[in-house]
């Protein structure tokens, strides 16, 4: 029985469910406890002990059926215990089975071997890593990757080799033509996961910060209340708390053809973030600019994507024009932006040789607490063709290359941290920034800055610059 459990667990792991050794021990113990008559409940027993997440239950059932149904065909009347015995017997010498589970990649070979294929020299040679996915910049492929906890996976690349993060989806959707505008449930779940992890990390820091924020004046009434049982001797002190501001965010998202893959995920991220902790105003643009804050909050994300894709909100058939958009944005919205929001612009800065109108950015800059430009293009291509990244970039606090959802969530997390740090007590500020620096160094440097040779736009002494 132990053997069959071990193999079943291996099959579960293969299909992406995390099962720890102690859990498989539990399963064996549970089956032994249930005795012969309890074996009718084998599925339940295994599920209770091996699966620890709602989302995995369906997958578990699938694997369970596939795993044990192979033996059902031998004799449909076999009940569970016999089935198990049959399984054990017929599995002798069948080591290959696990490699033949459908729906998996076989050409990768054994997992361990791949890991050892990475030599230290490979890690140093970042340029070569960069060339693994030459199509990235064209938007043919986007890799959705969950970010592991800090320090756990110091992966040089988002990679499928690390089975620690089983939820690695590759979206091989070609640019435009076959691109589904809607999101599959997996993608949404993925994003939920990425965001909830992000929130978890953020919340942790924020809570610690809140404690320090207590360093206000003495709250006399609360202190007396608290120390009632100590005969009013103030052992415990209650301090007044300072008001905390909700960070405000304004997002301008290019939805034109050339960056559609990135904006798609930006919109999903926004949708998931919405109402969680932020005050977000979202705009989309191509040649026209339109606000979609309300729609993001009230509409199912897939409906919204379809509406955008049909061109109902902004006309998608025209060429994108950043200059035009900035001008319109200034005219219509800039006046009523309140509370020094942080600004995020997502776009490739390809202006189709239109008027640059970069002076508008200067005005926006004055209204904004912080300005961040996200582009899916690599640094090398910023000065080619109609790309105005260098021009626009000099007005921003930072320009980041974002190619994967992981990058995206990291960048947004950093931004939120920055905003919080801005309002924080000096002590916390230092700690927050340190945490951030460590994070960036850990996981991001390799394949954002490192790979593209630095994402900072060229310094132009003639212009206004913000670093």
């Amino acid at each position, binding site marked *: 029985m132990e053997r069959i459990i071990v193999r079943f667990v291996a099959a579960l792991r293969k299909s992406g469910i995390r099962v720890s050794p102690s859990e498989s021990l539990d399963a064996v113990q549970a089956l032994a406890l249930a005795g012969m008559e*309890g074996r009718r409940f084998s599925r*339940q*027993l295994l599920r209770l002990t091996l699966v620890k997440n709602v989302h995995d239950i369906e997958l578990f059932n699938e694997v369970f059926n596939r795993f044990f149904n192979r033996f059902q065909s031998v004799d449909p009347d076999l009940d569970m215990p016999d089935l198990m015995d049959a399984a054990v017997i017929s599995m002798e010498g069948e080591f290959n089975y696990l490699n033949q589970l459908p729906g998996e990649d076989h050409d990768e070979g054994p997992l361990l071997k791949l890991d050892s294929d990475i030599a230290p020299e490979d890690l140093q040679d970042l340029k070569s890593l960069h060339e693994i996915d030459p199509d990235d910049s064209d938007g043919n492929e986007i890799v959705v990757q969950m970010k592991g906890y800090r320090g756990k996976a110091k992966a040089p690349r988002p990679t499928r080799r690390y089975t620690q993060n089983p939820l690695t989806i590759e979206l091989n959707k070609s640019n435009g033509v076959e691109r589904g505008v809607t999101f599959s449930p997996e993608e949404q779940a993925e994003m939920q996961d990425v965001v909830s992890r992000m929130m978890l990390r953020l919340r942790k820091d924020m809570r610690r910060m809140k404690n320090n924020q207590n360093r206000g004046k003495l709250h006399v009434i609360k202190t007396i209340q608290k120390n009632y049982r*100590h005969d009013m001797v103030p052992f415990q002190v209650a301090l007044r708390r300072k008001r905390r501001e909700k960070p405000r965010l304004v997002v301008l998202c290019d939805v034109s053809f050339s960056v559609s893959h990135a904006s798609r995920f930006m919109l999903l991220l926004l949708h998931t973030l919405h109402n969680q902790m932020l005050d977000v105003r979202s705009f989309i643009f191509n040649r026209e600019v339109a606000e979609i804050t309300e729609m993001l909050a009230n509409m199912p994300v897939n409906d919204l994507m379809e509406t955008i894709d049909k061109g109902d909100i902004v006309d998608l058939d025209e060429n994108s024009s950043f200059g035009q958009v900035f001008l319109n944005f200034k005219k219509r919205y800039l006046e009523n932006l309140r509370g020094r929001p942080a600004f995020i612009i997502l776009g490739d800065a390809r202006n189709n040789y239109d008027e640059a109108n970069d002076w508008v950015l200067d005005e926006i800059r004055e209204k904004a607490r912080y300005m961040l430009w996200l582009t899916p293009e690599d640094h090398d291509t910023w000065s080619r063709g109609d790309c105005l990244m260098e021009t626009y970039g000099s007005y921003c606090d930072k320009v980041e290359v974002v190619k994967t959802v992981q990058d995206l969530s990291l960048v947004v997390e950093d931004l939120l941290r920055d905003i919080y740090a801005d309002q924080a007590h000096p002590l916390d500020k230092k700690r927050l920034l340190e945490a951030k620096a460590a994070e960036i160094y850990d996981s991001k440097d390799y394949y954002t800055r490192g790979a593209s040779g630095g994402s900072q736009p060229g310094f132009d002494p003639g212009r206004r610059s913000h670093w």
Partner: protein
Amino acid sequence: MITEQKVKEFLQTGGYIADDAIATAVFLALHMEKPILIEGPPGVGKTGLAKALSEALDFPLVRLQCYEGIDEGKALYDWEYGKQLLYTQLLRTQLDNYLSVSADLREAVERLSAEESLFFSENFLVQRPILRSFLSEKRSLLLIDEIDRSDDEFEALLLECLSDFQVSIPELGVIAAKRKPLTILTSNGTRMISDALRRRCLYLYIGYPELEREVAIVRVKFPDLCEVLARQMVEFLRKARELNLRKPPSVSETLDWAQVLSILKATQLTPEVVANTVGVIAKHQTDLEKVTALAVKELS
């Protein structure tokens, strides 16, 4: 030896209709002495299961309601400062006598610190729910309710308690459970519970019940409600759950509604009856409208 079937039966006598998964989980938890982590939408009987179990098994129920900011002082133990202070005050003369023998200050401090353990003994320890259930002479049922409301720190604190059934108190050392309590954790899934905690528990997901089971639940709680009506309302609510409501009606709403209907002595579900009692099953303005519309469509 208690089998799943028996678990099911005695839960039923306690007024709780369990399905196979629930019965198996309880059976395993009883024998493997592992906590059960129950997840599911609100109102499907997660806490109800714990209550029914404590009644059926005659385990005293120790309940710990989690909230943001709960800490070990509220969950495990606390020192009773007031009592400690009071005792030092009352024992002042004894202390004076005791210390007056000593030649100098150094010796007095040594003598006093030798007796320190007196003031950090179980005498001055306030037992909070977890410690109380560990020290209970009878096997108890520890219900840690809505664990997702607590912070990560508290979750980490629970790890030791739940895997080894012991509490470490710096002043006293490790206190192990006299009888390992049957432990049930519930979560509404508003926050991801860490894998470390999940790994230490059996995981049970309770969703909305099957039609037959839900009818049975209603029948058990309200035997005087006629079977036809019970079935009709359960079927209606199952349709309402598919409406994509903000707060879909759960089993607890089913029971509330059954109670209301039996008080009103309704014999049949009509759009009017639904319209009059819709506040019991829908808890948002927009939901009210959707449910009323469904009633008109389905029942007339």
